[in-house]
């Protein structure tokens, strides 16, 4: 009797280990077309641009906020860029990757799409930008309504983030 019990306990253990150790068969879910179309966002009546906001080039737009004009030195200030990189890691990486879209847009090539002033204004007061800047508003829609967090950075810190983006 005792032996039988031990054997069945062993079998049970095997069964449990077996279950736990294996990946269950992957179900693909139901088959209706549910891939999100990025065009949908820009097809909304307010939009005038066919291109998704993340791919638009809006270099003439300085955005809304305290940063009115930034002149970039031709040389990248390495020291500033390094400290910007550290800030990026602490304050931004929860939502932004440099090389790919994550919660928000990727950072590579950001300055080919946006003006330095726009980038800084977006960091310094994302709420104001979303309220008053067309591109920021469209980005919010394109990125599922995930509002950008205000990380309470200073102008100086934001400027160093910009310098870091120049290195990407």
């Amino acid at each position, binding site marked *: 009797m005792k032996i039988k019990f031990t054997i069945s306990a062993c079998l049970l*253990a095997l069964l*449990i*280990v077996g279950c*736990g*150790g294996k990946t269950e068969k992957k179900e693909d879910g139901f088959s209706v077309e549910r891939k999100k179309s990025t065009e949908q966002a820009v097809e909304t009546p307010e939009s005038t641009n066919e291109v998704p906001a993340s791919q638009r080039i809006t270099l003439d737009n300085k955005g809304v906020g305290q940063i009115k004009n930034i002149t970039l030195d031709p040389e990248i200030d390495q020291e500033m860029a390094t400290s910007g990189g550290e800030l990026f*890691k*602490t*304050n931004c*990486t*929860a*939502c932004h990757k440099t090389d790919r879209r*994550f*919660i928000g847009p990727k950072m590579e090539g950001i300055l080919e799409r946006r003006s330095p002033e726009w980038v800084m204004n977006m960091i310094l007061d994302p709420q104001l930008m979303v309220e008053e800047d067309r591109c920021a508003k469209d980005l919010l829609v394109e990125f*599922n*309504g*995930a*509002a950008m*967090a*205000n*990380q*309470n*950075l200073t102008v100086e810190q934001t400027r160093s983030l910009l310098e870091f983006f120049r290195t990407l």
Partner: protein
Amino acid sequence: MKKIYYLIGGLLGLTLVYMGCNRAAGPNTNGALASSAAEKVYVAPGEQDEFYAFLSGGYSGNLTVYGLPSGRMFKEIPVFSQFPTSGYGYSEETKPMLNTSHGFIPWDDLHHPDISQTNGELDGRWIFVNGNNTPRIARISLETFETEEIIEIPNSGGNHSSAFITENTEYVIAGTRFAVPVPQRDMPINEYKGNFKGALSFISVAPETGRLDLKFQVLMPGFNYDLSHPGRGKSHGWHFFSTYNTEEANTLMEVNSSQNDKDFIAAINWKKIEDYVNNGGGTKMATNYAHNVYSHETHTGTTTMKKEVVTVDPTEIEGAVFFLPTPKSPHGCDVDPSGEYIIGSGKLSADLTVHSFTKMLAAIEGEKFDGEAYGIPILSFDDVMAGIVKSGGLGPLHTEFDANGNAYTTFFISSEVVKWRLETWDVVDRKPTFYSVGHLMIPGGNSRKPFGKYVVAMNKITKDRYLPTGPEMEHSAQIYDISGEKMELIYDFPTHGEPHYAAGCPAELLASKSKKIYRLDENKHPYGINNPSEARVERNGKEVHVYMGTIRSHFTPDNIEGIKVGDKVYFHITNHEQDFDVPHGFSILGQNTSELLIMPGQTKTSVWEPKQVGVWPFYCTDFCSALHQEMQGYVRVSPANSNIELSWSLGE
């Protein structure tokens, strides 16, 4: 012509309306009174209150923050009680705050808040409160509105004549209500008389950090030390305690403690005792008490057990302690803004007894003694008494002051606030309260500089004031406008728990320095993570540590596998937000504690001991963004003998 008629008609109509308004504004119409009272307490949407009011929560163990004159409650600050709303007393970091020599105590009875002072005026750095039951004193920061420190008081029982601070916040003073054997020992209760002691504790406050240190205890005769207030101005350096049960009865107290016609107000010259202790006086007594300190850098509380206390026999210091005879078991013991008058409210009497500090010094000088109690001189009543307020009320309890020489006293039995003049002792006004009022509070009313615009009366009985809610009702409070000669009842609001005393101050003293976020780069929590790339899960035997980050609106990581039944899983969660008022919450199915509410830049820890195999969800409990519902994750729990590797991920 028609136009003229219209004009005349219109003018007549307007005049009627105008007269109507005037009549309505007259003093005999209740509606108009109500509307002018409404204007006085109306704080329009988006506007802010003029004063902060901190009302003790009594048996809730917590402190509540209100605005005056609106009576709106802004916050409940957990102090002596576990608070599932924020995880206080449940999170690993805050559990040590509730440690005592009797172990972890999840509750206490919080009575008397007092705001720190400089030169006798409110300075708004900290607020101190007492835990009555398992004697403790807490210090709460008025920048973070969080409990930063709790010190247990040994040799005490019923820590009631507490937590009152001296006029430069040199000491927070805590007197015992119940006399007890000192040190505690096994002895017959009926040998109380002459053997039990009443310890009055002087806890020093470090000027920069506010750090508390139990500097000395004065071991007084075994009376009940009921309430106390500091001397100020000319009487700075003295502290006054009311006493009852000078009969030293130990049973059927409601009869046996009311035999003496007069009990005492004890006047303690703490400066003299401090000098004595600084010069090596006093006796070191072995004891055991907890000292819990919370750090906003590590976001963690730590407990240190202290083993020694300096005790002082007051009869060994000439001129340090005197008794002022005061009729009828005095309860409140209040000192006016000048420091000259000490008001004793004989709670079984109709009258208030006012002692004069100047007369007291003269009586000491002239040795006008009426005898002594256990070696402590009893001053002659007639030589210290400045006046008697013939109130016409019954059951006086507590007195606060305005800046114009008026005093306001609550009467419990006759349910009223009575306004009277200092020095003439004339009653000038009285207004009913609803019902059975205990304490009252005027912002700064216990300081050299009161802000005498409103008085808040805190009642013990509610009855019909609000819609009934079954047998248990929240207590009621009333706000009176005291800016005129007569008091005017302007508002009535429910309070939380049982407010005893309260403290208030002008809003501008605190509002501008109130902290908005904890800076991430100042976070020194040993399990905190600076950025999401540090997020990880580590196993140490059966202990698993999850280093998790949060930001709107996801956890990093949000999928964890390799946890087993029997593990003890510590979720260390750092909120990576740096924006005002964006906390995140955390809870997981089957958690045996409360949720966590983590402020921006803060790290908090919750322990989870999964008992069942399965895939268990966790989520954010505080609606943080439009994608809050998506702020969720899973932990896979495998059998104890499983060999699944520990793994974690986000977005893979």
